[in-house]
């Protein structure tokens, strides 16, 4: 009798948390309806101007107080490393990196700056079930490390592989990425550190809509210099950082298969399942199991009773 009571309690708990989770999910889904900020800012990266000097990387390192690099920032041997195969990527100590490409149809290399693109509808933000991320009216996608539980769903959700995981603190591992210098600069009306450092003005800060106009203007005025494509205007639902290039973007490391609608529209259902799988399924399935077991036992008891009864009748 005692066992049966505790089983029933367990079952109740299981169903209770399932109901709670459904409610919770509804709530998070609501808060993930991302506001579009028409006046938000961005940066236009003109790759035809970039000379690969890495002043931006150096400035980011200083601004974000990241560890000293293994090689000085003016050491260009770094570009050669990635030639046959993998390119450098952003990680917990490098929020932005420059990679070199040598497209065959032009006689000089092109350099691509990578950092968080600060999506208009960030997949990292929508996928985060503790709501650690915020899209600010200025355009930055920032996160709150105190809220982050280190589940790394955002790393999977980001179409550009940007959020990195900082293992160095065992007690409080956390996600790190470019924050558009939000706290130290953007908020105070200062330019992001990398933008300010760029000698070629390959990085232009401004309102996203105006940047798109300027980008079109540059393309229109110099058709030999640019391909007719602003990367980030539509990719992943639009990003705050936009790129111009002199060769097709897939030749300089960009993923041109990224859909034009916000990433989360296509993966939302899958990602909503992550917290569900983690929190609801265990008690729910335990409940099902117990239910089934109980029914089997009841059936067995009934059969036994029947048999006993039959024996008596004989």
């Amino acid at each position, binding site marked *: 009798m005692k066992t049966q009571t505790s089983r029933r309690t367990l079952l109740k708990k299981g169903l209770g948390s399932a109901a709670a989770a459904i409610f919770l999910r509804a709530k998070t889904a609501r808060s993930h309806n991302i506001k579009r900020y028409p006046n938000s800012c961005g940066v236009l990266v003109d790759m035809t*101007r970039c000379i690969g*000097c890495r002043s931006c990387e*150096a400035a980011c390192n200083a601004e974000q107080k990241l560890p000293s690099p293994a090689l000085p920032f003016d050491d260009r041997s770094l570009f050669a490393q990635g030639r046959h195969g993998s390119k450098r990527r952003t990680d917990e100590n490098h929020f932005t990196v420059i990679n070199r490409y040598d497209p065959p149809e032009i006689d000089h290399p092109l350099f691509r700056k990578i950092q968080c693109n600060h999506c208009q509808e960030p997949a990292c933000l929508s996928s985060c079930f503790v709501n650690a991320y915020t899209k600010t009216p200025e355009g930055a996608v920032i996160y709150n490390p105190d809220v982050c539980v280190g589940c790394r769903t955002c790393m999977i959700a980001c179409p550009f592989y940007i959020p990195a995981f900082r293992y160095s603190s065992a007690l409080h591992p956390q996600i790190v990425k470019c924050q558009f210098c939000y706290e130290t600069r953007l908020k*105070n009306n200062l330019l992001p550190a990398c933008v300010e450092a760029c000698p*070629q003005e390959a990085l232009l800060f401004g309102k996203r809509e105006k940047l798109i106009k300027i980008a079109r203007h540059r393309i229109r005025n110099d058709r030999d210099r640019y391909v007719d494509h602003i990367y980030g205007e539509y990719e992943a639902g639009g990003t705050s950082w936009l790129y111009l290039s002199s060769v097709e973007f897939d030749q300089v490391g960009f993923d041109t298969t990224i859909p034009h609608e916000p990433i989360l529209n296509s993966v939302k259902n899958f990602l909503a399942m992550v917290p569900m799988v983690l929190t609801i399924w265990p008690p729910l399935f335990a409940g099902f199991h117990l239910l089934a077991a109980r029914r089997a036992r009841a059936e067995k008891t009934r059969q036994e009773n029947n048999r006993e009864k039959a024996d008596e009748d004989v």
Partner: protein
Amino acid sequence: MVRVKIDLFPLLSLFFIIFPVMPTTAAFAAAVASTVTIDALQELYTPVDFDHLAHAEMYNCTSCHHHTTGTTMQDEKCLKCHKNSPATANVSCSSCHHRRSTALDGAEPHGNYHIDIVGLKGALHLNCLGCHRETGAPCGCIECHDYTEAGRKRFAVQEN
């Protein structure tokens, strides 16, 4: 807030450049400024003594300047409106190219023109490096600039 303001201030105040106004008289060599000291970006690099005369002997004024004395305007796009424009009073780059460049500010656009004016730092580098890259002239950062102490620190360069 205060902390951040402090680190930008010296930088902005150092974004400084002096381009002397050229007189329109006498022999060419006497008319052209011989050396121009470019002391923008003094935070990380020492000032550059630009050999203006050597460049002026090799190229037309309009290779680098838009409105200037000497030869007439050659840029097709500018000519559309400025065919008969007189030389401007001030040929200094910094009179039009401002120290902070963003798409937030800038001159009022003229239809499709003047909507994408680069800042001073960009104007100088795009102009100089653009030509240096084409002509095989020096292109590395420290071929024109020397690091300051702060510059060495920023780029994690060992003392030599």
